[in-house]
């Protein structure tokens, strides 16, 4: 989310889910909303039914394509040139919002200059999208206001994902689609409380409320509140933690509710990292591939067994309430953490409950100053920023000024993904989610009914590729990258474009992240899940015994 933070001053969804109904145009980029965010999918489809235009930009024929007025199918990893070309078309035709740009934005000249390289002809060649479609999309987006952009990991999970996000930001600013109902740039976050985890300072660079760790004033504030705090040097990111573990710089890790042994890219590397650790503590509700490597495993309580709050993708803070007692022997995560702290002799961890913790958050995180349990219980939810108990919350960001002041147009260059198909590994592997499972499946794989819908990984492959390789539906395939190999059955479908194959990461029997690339975003270190080079072969029948069937 660093892209939007750079441009706007905040990386969060600018508008609200309920806003889609007011949009005249929806632009969905790199998102499979009907699978990954089904309820937002309902909202978007309803908007289309009421007459909103829908443009889908996605190499995959995702569920929304059926409802779209326009579907652009760029080659994987070519979002930046595609969106920049749309920007150029808009400027050339005078469809931009001159007044908004003049009053609210900066750095236009440098941006315009960088558009030089994105003429329709070259971009069409790079992206594989016909020039007239790019033009039509630009026109549709610019001329139907307000227009809302939504995107998900299909933009971010590339080695130049931050550039992709900034391209989108440029497009929205150019057309004045910021700070008003039905418009905006809306990253759809993956997990229930990703937004909250970032808000709460589970980032190497910021304290709760995005207060920078490098800012001595913030440091002093937290040192005063907590009695002691960390240094001014930013910490290392998740991916860097594993690198550092491999070479011995990191010796101990405390992992809560994560299963990097299935979810993170380049699993062989992760395994090596975790095995290199001197001490690993993992806290989870089930045994996972990661808890198996832990020196201490601590049983956490599930969301149904504890109080607290989640922050959803639209910055909306809502209550989580205890419905049942924690299953025998498990404890809420906050309690476990606090008990460790207390055993280490620390002060300030004697909370009686999450209510006390929220009070502390209210005091120390200005944008959460008014988000109290009392208010949440009374009105259901509040969207931050909500600095005081009188503040109604903020459904739309950047309404009068950008959080950072002026919105910054970013000149961008195009870089292809880190790893591209070649003769040896001729296919591009794309990974993502499916409706019936969630993340590494620790929860959903334990729901019998959900397994009835999907109980094994299937490699999605385009009919043309399948024909070339003489693959039939259901054939057992081996999929190998430079880093590893898995087996899965074939599912022949035109959802996936020729030259690209697709898998989820829900199945431990078929750990697709054995294959994925070590490539990371140059700014955020977000892994390049959406592109790595693989080869696909049919598995001979006699080899099947060792296959990866679920």
């Amino acid at each position, binding site marked *: 989310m660093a892209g939007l933070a750079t441009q706007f001053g905040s990386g969060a969804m600018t508008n609200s889910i309920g806003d889609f109904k007011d949009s005249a145009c929806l632009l969905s980029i790199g998102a499979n909303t009907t699978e990954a965010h089904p309820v937002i999918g309902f909202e978007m489809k309803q908007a289309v039914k009421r007459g909103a235009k829908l443009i889908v930009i996605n190499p995959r024929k995702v569920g929304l394509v059926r409802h779209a007025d326009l579907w652009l199918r760029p080659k994987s990893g070519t979002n930046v040139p595609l969106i920049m070309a749309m920007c150029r078309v808009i400027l050339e035709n005078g469809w931009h919002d001159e007044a908004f740009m003049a009053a609210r934005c900066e750095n236009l000249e440098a941006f315009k200059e960088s558009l030089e390289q994105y003429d329709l002809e070259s971009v069409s060649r790079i992206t594989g999208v016909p020039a007239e479609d790019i033009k039509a999309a630009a026109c549709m987006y610019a001329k139907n206001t307000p227009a809302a952009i939504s995107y998900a990991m299909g933009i971010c999970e590339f080695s130049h994902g931050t550039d992709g996000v900034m391209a989108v930001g440029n497009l929205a600013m150019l057309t004045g689609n910021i700070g008003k109902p039905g418009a905006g740039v809306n990253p759809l976050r993956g997990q229930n409380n990703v937004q909250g985890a970032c808000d709460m300072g589970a980032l190497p660079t910021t304290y709760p409320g995005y207060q920078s760790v490098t800012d001595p004033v913030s440091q002093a504030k937290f040192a005063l509140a907590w009695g002691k705090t960390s240094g001014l040097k930013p910490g290392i990111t998740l991916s860097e933690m594993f690198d550092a573990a491999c070479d011995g710089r990191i010796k101990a890790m*405390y992992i809560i509710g994560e299963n990097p042994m299935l979810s993170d890219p380049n699993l062989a590397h992760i395994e090596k990292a975790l095995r290199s650790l001197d001490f690993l503590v993992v806290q989870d509700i089930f045994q996972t591939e990661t808890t198996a490597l832990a020196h201490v495993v601590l049983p956490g309580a599930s969301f149904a067994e504890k109080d607290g709050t989640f922050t959803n993708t639209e910055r909306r803070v809502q209550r989580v309430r205890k419905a049942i007692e924690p299953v025998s022997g498990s404890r809420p995560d906050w309690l476990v953490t606090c008990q460790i702290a207390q055993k280490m002799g620390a002060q300030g961890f004697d909370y009686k409950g999450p209510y006390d913790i929220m009070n502390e958050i209210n005091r120390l995180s200005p944008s959460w100053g008014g988000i109290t349990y009392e208010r949440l219980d009374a009105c259901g939810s509040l969207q931050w920023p909500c600095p005081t108990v009188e503040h109604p919350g903020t459904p739309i960001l950047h309404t009068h000024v950008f959080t950072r002041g002026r919105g910054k147009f970013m000149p961008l260059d195009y870089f292809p993904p880190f790893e591209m198909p070649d003769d040896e590994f001729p296919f591009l592997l794309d990974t993502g989610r499916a409706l019936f499972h969630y993340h590494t499946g620790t929860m959903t794989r334990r729901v019998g009914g959900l397994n009835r819908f999907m109980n094994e990984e299937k490699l999605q492959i385009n009919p043309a590729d399948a024909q070339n390789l003489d693959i039939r539906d259901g054939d057992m395939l081996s999929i190998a990258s430079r880093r590893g190999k898995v087996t899965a059955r074939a599912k022949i479908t035109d959802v996936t474009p020729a030259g690209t194959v697709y898998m989820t990461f829900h199945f431990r029997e078929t750990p697709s992240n054995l294959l994925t690339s070590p490539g990371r975003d140059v700014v955020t270190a977000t892994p390049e899940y959406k592109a790595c080079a693989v080869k696909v072969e049919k598995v001979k029948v006699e080899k099947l015994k060792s296959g990866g069937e679920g």
Partner: protein
Amino acid sequence: MAQTVKFTIDGKQVTSTEGTTVLEAALSAGIFIPNLCFHPDLEPYGGCRMCIVEIQGMRGMPTSCTIKVAEGMIVKTFGPEIDKTRRDALQLLLANHPTDCLACVKNQRCELQKVAAYMGVTERTMQRTARPQAVDESNPFFKLDRNYCILCARCTRTCNEITCVNAIDLVSRGDETRVSLFQDQQFMESICRSCGECVARCPVGALVSKNTVIPSSEVLTTCCYCAVGCSMYLGVRDGKIVSVRGNSEGKSNKGKLCVKGRFGIAEFVTHPDRLTSPLVKGENGQVQASWDDALQIVADRFKTYSPDEIAVVASARTTNEDVYAVQKLARAVLGTNNVDNCARL
């Protein structure tokens, strides 16, 4: 803002806003008009004919669910003619509906039953016209028993208007009309995404969850799956989660849920695989330990590392309070900024 409209229902002055239907205005004014096919989330349908009223200056008996309020409108919701017409429509439904309410999952929660009770119906007066109809039990979470269906079309309209999946629709004509999937497929063969929005809106025992336990209490909370943050009620009975329903007041989901939220929670929460004791790795692998011992080991070991040697991974699935506590542990106790979460995954 919508304009205010003043009008009269049964002699009572009612104020409502422009665009509201007579039925909605009456219900919110505390005047009950029987209804079955009406649902606040759906476009007016006018099929069940329960909500007929008389409106001065309008011919016949219009359905109050399809007429918008207008200034000065004079509405009459009861009277012998209205009652007889409604009662006959209701009797026709009852003549075509199973007779043993005790055997129905929806007993006491059935809207047909409620309307019949409201109208004081104590016996069936018409010839039975029910014929055996197909039951679809293919979906693991819910079933469609067409014998109970009253063809209010809430389900098919939901699938069209709310989820826009269009997996189900009405087919055929007359009293052979039925809820059907494309080419009379079963649910599991169809494009149905199993969200259960249709089940949530069925007024009778036709589309029902296979889990039939009725909760003794409900707790309002937020879904644990994706980042939409659907507001939901977990139904609890005997210390277990037995039901899930969307909270229509929820700002992000307005009552809607997907297959995982609606049907994918209860089973994992109390799954026998849940970790119930801390484990500590010894020579023979991980063995159970007491909380006190396990926490002590962790605390003791953590103390031995310098801030640069330790890293903390918080969870994007736990609560804000959980995350706050853990980053505080990292910074204030372990002294490190090496704390991250899986935001980028």
